């Protein structure tokens, strides 16, 4: 059949079928459907993600407007790993993590923080940590990295990261300023809006006020 006679939707179905066949070849990988998700205990996230961030996969949290709860979520995930008696790695794309903002000093003992200077460093470090196998959660914070540089990351780099995560028992969540990761299996945009009064509110109330919306594959913006 001539390629030009295949309609776009048929081509897409063909590609998806091919991906499934190729995926079936990697029998040694952990079937993420059988592994329980990483429960965040934040209603907005768990309700949109079948109970939590799926394990052995890459998820993307988009924070496109300022102060919409990205930090609140990120710091809460650190606490969750401590409660679950695991280790968490944070790839800090622009060196913006504030240790003095963490609620409990004990939480920091479970955290491996990498202070990157560039996007390239952040991606390379993420690859190394995804393959390490010791972390139950890998967080990649790229929210303050230069957008043009982020858009130039080739799609296959993200797929490579996804494959590395898939072979491990790790949950990987990347925080981005815009939809950027074609390999992400779960994609949520934070849509909360916090006012100055939030600085006097209890964390539990703030987390309950977090809201998000799911984004599909078609939301990926292709930048040439």
């Amino acid at each position: 059949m001539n390629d030009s006679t295949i309609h776009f939707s048929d081509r897409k179905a063909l590609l998806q079928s091919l991906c499934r066949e190729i995926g079936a070849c990697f029998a040694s990988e952990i079937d993420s459907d059988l592994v329980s998700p990483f429960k965040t205990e934040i209603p907005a996230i768990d309700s949109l993600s079948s109970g939590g961030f799926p394990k052995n996969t890459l998820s993307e949290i988009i924070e496109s407007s300022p102060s919409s709860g990205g930090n609140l979520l990120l710091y809460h995930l650190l606490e969750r790993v401590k409660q679950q008696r695991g280790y968490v790695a944070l790839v800090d794309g622009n060196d913006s993590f504030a240790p003095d903002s963490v609620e409990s000093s004990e939480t920091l003992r479970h955290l491996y923080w990498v202070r990157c200077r560039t996007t390239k460093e952040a991606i390379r470090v993420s690859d190394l940590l995804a393959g390490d196998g010791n972390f139950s959660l890998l967080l990649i914070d790229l929210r303050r990295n230069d957008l043009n540089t982020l858009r130039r990351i080739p799609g296959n780099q993200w797929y490579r990261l996804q494959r590395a995560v898939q072979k491990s028992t790790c949950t990987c969540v990347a925080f981005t300023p815009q939809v950027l990761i074609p390999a992400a299996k779960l994609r949520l945009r934070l849509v909360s809006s916090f006012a100055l009064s939030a600085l006097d509110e209890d964390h539990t109330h703030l987390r309950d006020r977090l809201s998000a919306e799911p984004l599909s594959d078609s939301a990926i913006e292709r930048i040439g």
Partner: protein
Amino acid sequence: MYAVIQIPVFPLQALLRQMRKRPKGPIAVLDESGEQSYILTANKVARQFEVTEGMHPARALARCAHLQLIPRSEAAEKSTTRILHLLAQTLSPRIEATDSGLVTIDLRGATEQSRQEKLESLVERFRTIGLFVRIGIAGTPDHALWAAYLAKWIKRVRWVDTFLNQLPVAVTGISQEVVEIFAGWGIHTLGAIKKLPREEVGARLGKSGLDLWDAVSGQRSRLLKPYKTEPQFFRKLELDYRVENLEALLFILKRFIDELTLELRVSHQAAFGFKIYLKLENKRIQETHIEVPIPSSRASTLFRILETALENMQTQDAIVGVHLRLDTAEARARQSDLFAVAMEDAVGFGETADRIAALVGPDRSGSPRANNTWRPDAFHIEKLDTEIQTDFEPESHKPSIGLPLERIRPPRPIRVFMQDEQPAAIEGEVIQGIVKQVNGPWRLSSDWWDNKPWSREEWDIELEAGGLYRIFRTSKGWFVEGMYG
């Protein structure tokens, strides 16, 4: 119950094990130690050309023109013998170095299932280090030895008579003359010898006949001559070729590590460091010391550490000798605390952390700790604990109020337009806009007792366009410190 492990064509296997690229086709090992050289042993392909032990090399070449002749290496045989003894000791401490490439093991005390599993695992272990072995298991050392000769991999003698009926008389190693005597009587197998009256065999063949009959019938109680290896945590190799790249060096070191980890296992030790001495062509010795973060006796872990450490190593000249020595300590079997949090692969994490540190620079990765000071953004980085003991003392907790801050490092200068002594508008590289709401000011200062006093006036602001920020003023001007979110 006894087991015999035999390395067939031992001198040849010992040599091939040391070669990076194994030759193919007909191969024979040449013994040049005596007045005349002769073929010591040959592989299956060479035997098909009727190349046999004891043959003169010229005659062997006449039979097989493509025959590759490799000189015997006593060093290779010594090294392989040591591996054989060490691996045998993983089955039982009671072993006998019966002959070259042959070891007898006393398996009494082990259950049948554990015996079988261990033997299968042992065959695989030998295979991974490049050796093919045959193992015989039987009720007596003699039967076990003969079973090994018949084995493809592992042969267990269950029905002795059936087993003996398969074996030719020559397998016992008795002289050809005696074999011919038995043949003259119509006796061709060990099963037939067993049926003969003992006294008659003794009367015709003397003591050697009696010994043979006792061995065949399983009545010879032979005590094993116990053999114990003394631990040696070093390996040396003088090369007759030049090593000029890392790959070739790692091939040699991998073999050393495989052998040395056996030594560690058998003597219940673990390695906490390596010393590598490289003899260079210019006669100098280059030394490298490598630390193992957590003592280990696992070959894969130790080799990985070695490989990472040598990645960027350079030498002034080609390498003509390699010496590897381990620093060892007694291995501790420790049960982790029930309440402790521990990494599964702390050594593997150590390597990851080293690679990350090499990428991002020192002091930019690790576990953060807030400093005990009011100075903003004061912290230091420590090495991540790969085992966190539960501390039942109360943790220090901040009040869980407000949104966490995301820092801008270093704080960026901004222009602030004031109205009624409060920020009303911001202009800067990172943030700008009309201020919708403010909280503050909070005046802070500290460290006035030493030479780094500081003071500042902090404000929390909300911009009309959205976003919550912390800004501050010092004697040097206004800055934005971070965003809440």
